[in-house]
């Protein structure tokens, strides 16, 4: 499972970086979305994947028997998803406002503040 995931994550990162290098601001934001998804999958995979073993302790035992899935990366990924959701919602509103004001979907037309 891990090699498949590793390849998928690598492709997500590559696609995200490719989109972020485009001039369109919409593609830029789609790139950011893919990037945060790639990071979440990376956390999920790098912590080790164990299938079909929820981290539950049976009654009467002090610890779960055998290897169980690690709940912490799942909690971390859940937090990261929520944060990414909020931040990307802001980014979507931002590009809409920027499009209304600058009247262009082109990053090359937004160079006035550069020095």
């Amino acid at each position, binding site marked *: 499972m891990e090699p498949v995931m590793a390849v998928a994550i690598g492709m997500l990162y590559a696609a995200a970086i490719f989109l*972020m290098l485009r001039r369109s*601001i919409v593609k*830029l934001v789609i790139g*950011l979305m893919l*990037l*945060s998804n*790639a*990071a*979440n999958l*990376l*956390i*999920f*995979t*790098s*912590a*080790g994947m164990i299938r079909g073993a929820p981290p539950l302790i049976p009654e009467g035992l002090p610890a779960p028997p055998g290897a169980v899935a690690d709940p*912490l*990366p799942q909690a*971390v990924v859940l*937090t*990261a998803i929520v*944060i990414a959701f*909020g*931040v990307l919602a*802001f*980014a979507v509103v*931002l*590009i809409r*406002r*920027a499009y209304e*004001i*600058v009247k262009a979907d082109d*990053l090359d037309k*937004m*160079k*006035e*503040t*550069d*020095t």
Partner: protein
Amino acid sequence: MRPEVALPILLPLLSGAISLLFWRSRPMQRFTAVAGNLALLGVALWLLVAVKLDGYVVIQMGGWQAPYGITLVADMLSAVMVVMTAIIGLTLSIYSLASTGPGHERFGFYPLMHLLLAGVAGAFLTGDVFNLYVWFEVMLVASFALLILGGEKAQMEGAIKYVTLNLLASVIFLSAVGLLYGMVGTLNMADAAQRLAVAEHQGMVEVLAVMFMVAFGIKAAAFPLFFWLPASYHTPPVAVSALFAGLLTKVGVYALFRVFTLLFDQTLGYTQDILLWGAALTMVTGVLGAAAQFEFRRILSFHIVSQIGYMILGLALYTPLAIAGGIFAVVHNIVVKTNLFLISGITRRLQGTYELKKMGGLYRERPWLAVAFFLSAFALAGVPPLSGFFAKFVIVRAGIEAEAYVVTAVALLVGLLTLYSMVKIWNEVFWKTLPEDNLVPAEEVLVGDDSRMVPPSLWLMYLPVALLALFALLMGIFAEPLMAMMNQIGDQLMHPQGYIDAVLGAEVGVEDVLIEAPEQEETP
């Protein structure tokens, strides 16, 4: 239980919640801003005293033992940074009473400011690397909204670059956190430090170190990752610029100091050179960028980049003295840089522009403002006996002791060029006579900043400037006790075992669990 560690985070959150409740009441929001930040300063000083007495102050959130729960920990570095956060928060909330117009206040300037301060304080105090990411995001989201407050074209353009590069940095940071967890199976920084030292794949540790360096390098605006900063910092309302200039990049610098002294001290042979030359190039590009500018806030933005170089140089030299000098530079820079931005807001209010060519004659018109600018600008350039001189002196001395002669020479040269930029502002804004074509364009000021040309409110802008200028002067005159504090920071950072023992030590954890337990029984 040590409440003083959690309170610097909780208080701004509370103030933010209160000002959200009074969304429609402008006086209440303004009152909460000043009162909340005054309380924050009180708590921050309490924390500083507690750390001074005990060395480290630690609490385990929810009573969970250290490697499993989230730890809040304050050492001398955290405490000093929290105090600086509170000072900037207080002075800025006073300043924005006069500078932030009703238009911006209606769109939530004050709640956002409180949330930003909560994020900054949280980043300084947490002992958990994923929690650090969360605080970074709290800070970022608040800064995004503050940056586009007012919604002008330049702000939108600046914000797109700011948002993109900061989100990229966050994702790199998050990926590094994921890989770190995969390697050592813990997110607690003290625990991870112990495990990384004995990790199997030291090559992998170097990769992680570089990922953290890039992520925090973008946030700290180090060369070659700084381009978002001069593109965006001169666009928002001036109180927001000053807040960002004072605090945001310094959180990145703090994170660099923290991870490279605690987590990655064994990979330093590899990363030290990158940091050293990165620092030199940051100083040079920043100061040269500023030399080419003739807009008040753009010059100051480039100088933020240049000064970040000094701080990173302190880290890269990696001796207790150099680290003390680097943190001295951080503290001095927070005060002085914020003050210069505040002064640029006042001159804008007086003359209606940020363009140096169109300004002039303020030395005659506002002598005390000129004095405040003089103190801050020459402190930034490092003229004795002001605060910047001692920061630079300590770093240069540490550089010579470490035999890094080239970089030290660069640091001295950059000091000279900083002086050039500051003298340029002094000549253009204060010394020369006002160009005749500059009529004070009251309408433009009204539209742009929706500020009012009401003279009585101006003293609210002068008061924080005077306080910060005085603070910069006092930091120079009383450099000795301050330096003692910095030496303690240098000592603590160079011997991370104390931090690790304080976080993981059995006494602290058990005591907290024992205190927590009866409280939990009472609640049902």
